[in-house]
């Protein structure tokens, strides 16, 4: 069974640009989660999508946004990039449900570098 996939592996942008990160969940999973893992800060929750709807978002500014497509894949958009946005962005998927407490399975991440 294929795991969670993310693309691209690496992304280099300059300050002020926009970045788009993509995620495909495990087959059969309907929930997708996005986390930011910055150096020394641990995993910080960004967004949760289930059945195409945004269910919850973490304490990040509105320039972090995303969406989930009918095939349950998802993309994360980061507008007006700042240097401190440089981090590993991790996508996870789960079997879904209204509580969001199901086990989450992570992809390999996209490393975003903002110059």
């Amino acid at each position, binding site marked *: 069974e294929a795991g*969670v996939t993310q693309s691209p592996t690496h992304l280099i942008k300059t300050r002020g640009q926009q970045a788009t990160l993509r995620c495909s969940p495990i087959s059969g999973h309907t*929930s997708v*989660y996005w986390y930011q893992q910055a150096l020394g800060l*641990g*995993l910080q*929750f960004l967004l*949760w999508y*289930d059945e195409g709807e945004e*269910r*919850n978002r*973490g304490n990040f500014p509105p320039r972090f946004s995303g969406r989930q497509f009918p095939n349950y894949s998802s993309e994360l958009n980061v507008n007006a990039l700042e240097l401190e946005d440089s981090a*590993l962005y*991790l996508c996870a998927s789960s079997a879904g449900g209204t*509580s*969001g*407490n199901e*086990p*989450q*399975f*992570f*992809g*390999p*991440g996209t*490393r975003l570098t903002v110059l």
Partner: protein
Amino acid sequence: QKEVEQDPGPLSVPEGAIVSLNCTYSNSAFQYFMWYRQYSRKGPELLMYTYSSGNKEDGRFTAQVDKSSKYISLFIRDSQPSDSATYLCAMSGPDSWGKFQFGAGTQVVVTP
């Protein structure tokens, strides 16, 4: 104060020893407890998922949850050099809505 506290290590043990990891938390509403393993520059891999208090064993791994003390543990028996990684605890509750709270991670080094 962070909701989840985890000693960053590094924790160095000889091959074959038992690795003991733990996390403390402050939110008594947490009911779901997870342990992940993360190798350098890779995504976290789910090792254990437990609900409420008690013990759970899976191969060389044992997870313990003590909700009264707000304390969870992971034990790795017969440790191998391939167990060298960062171990992350995570937890959530009925009002978490998909937002797992992660510890900072403990770096483990198993020396041959």
